[in-house]
């Protein structure tokens, strides 16, 4: 029988869940967000530092605990966001959100999503969408806060 979970737990996700890239809080930082998913208790504290006249994400660090999906998605984010323009990061967050909410109706744009394309399978597991988005929403809110300053 085909593994019904293979679409969810891609190799890359399981690897990232162990690797936990970017785990650890950075100093100095420009903004910090703490988010908690009350249904499962997953939580993340994420810090971001901008560079290039605040147009670039320079560095990003996080600590938290949660399921493999939430930990892997934080790890992927921490590997891919640094060096990107803030506008590009926002675009990527929005693209991931749209993909995950599509219930599988949208073809993932690998160009736009990078390694986050591995989370495409989460779209078929609506209960896990929040897990996959946790770190990404934390970053989005941190960027919002910086915009508002």
């Amino acid at each position: 029988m085909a593994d019904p979970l293979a679409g969810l737990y891609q190799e890359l996700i399981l690897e990232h869940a162990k690797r936990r890239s970017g785990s650890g809080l950075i100093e100095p930082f420009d903004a910090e967000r703490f988010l908690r998913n009350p249904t499962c208790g997953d939580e993340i504290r994420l810090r971001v530092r901008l560079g290039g006249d605040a147009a670039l994400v320079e560095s990003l660090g996080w600590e938290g605990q949660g399921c493999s999906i939430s930990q892997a998605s934080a790890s992927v984010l921490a590997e891919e966001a640094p060096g990107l323009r803030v506008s590009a990061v926002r675009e990527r967050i929005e693209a991931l959100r749209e993909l995950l909410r599509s219930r599988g109706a949208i073809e993932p744009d690998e160009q736009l999503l990078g390694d986050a394309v591995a989370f495409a399978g989460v779209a078929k597991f609506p209960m896990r969408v929040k897990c996959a988005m946790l770190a990404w929403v934390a970053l989005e809110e941190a960027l919002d806060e910086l915009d508002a300053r």
Partner: protein
Amino acid sequence: MTIGTEPTTGPALTEERIEQLRADFPILAEQPGGVPLVYLDSGATSQQPRQVLEAEWAFRTQRNAAVHRGAHTLAALATDDYEHARERIARFVGARPTEISWAMNATDALNTVALALAEANRARTVDASLRIREGDEILVTEAEHHANLLPWQRLADETGATLRWVEVDDDGVWTTEALLARITERTRVVALAHVSNVTGLVAEVEPIVAAAHAVGALVVLDACQSVPHRPVDLRALGVDAAAFSSHKMLGPGGIGVLYLAEALGAALPPARLGGSMITTVTMTEREFLPAPQRFEAGTQPVGAIVGLAAAVDYLEAVGMPAIEAHERALGERLAAGAASLPGVRLVGPRPGQERAGLASVVVDGVHAHDVGQVLDAAGIAARVGHHCAQPLHRRLGVAATTRASTYLTTTEAEVDRFLDVLSGVRSYFGAA
């Protein structure tokens, strides 16, 4: 199934008997994930047999009307069903009908008790023995469901009383001795779960009631996980108040039961005011009906109440002692099986010690959410999370556990399937 039969022991729940019972539960034949459903989440909510659905349907299509109001024949029929249901449920838990009032669910019932005690504190006319003053104590356990913790936290905050609790050990277990040692002259309320929804620990209620009553404290029993699964006689236990939910005992959602022992029901002021609970009202004054109506402001969900009575009929026809024995065996099978798996930590009483028909586990190196996902892929509906008991989980050092809970339709094969899938989880995530 005839109504009004004496409680029966019922034949043992053999494989054959369970097969028959399962045929009454349409949902058990569903395949929500494309694989046969293994439902191990009755602790969260139970499924309903045809008999319950049909009783509700018959009421709603033949006898529905507002009860205790109006003079038409339909209203009289509906009122008959409604009060008959109260009698039925009272008998099921060893209570008098006047000791049974309706709530939305157990959470609502527990809140009602705490709110009514807060009201007793404010109202000048109320029995002074109900008053809770600064320096008094409210005692709970560290393992309580939030429904039996938060209302007491707030009552303590409002009255200046101190919330005290008996601590649990590394397995999430507290002892009767430790609880008794926490009862003092200042204790006014002892609130505890009869059966823990996370650990399956069964509280020894009698000595706690004796010690509480000796200092004039009330005992409030969260009977959510006991009344559906074992014979419970609330009068014999001697508790002052108890709460349970219809949806956990084969009944419909939206209705719960508040038991108030006669003396407390007579003394306690109502938390909610409105229609159906008064004798005389003027523009500035109000007089209330006695219990149970005093605690039933507004229109009740009569169809659901009729469904709950049918659920009680069903449970009694199967036999609560038989259900208890069956679940005790399944609980032991779960506990012993889980404890023997490498990298799996069993929460609650050790195998061989008394526990209800449920078990919660922690899988080393794998988050409960991921455990639940693997179980789900195998068609197993188990609950993952903190089960509304965050302090207990914090004490256990985990954010979440995975719980399998059984009921009268659960088979040994289902428990074994759960254990089998559980045993493969760590290697799936590379944690083994």
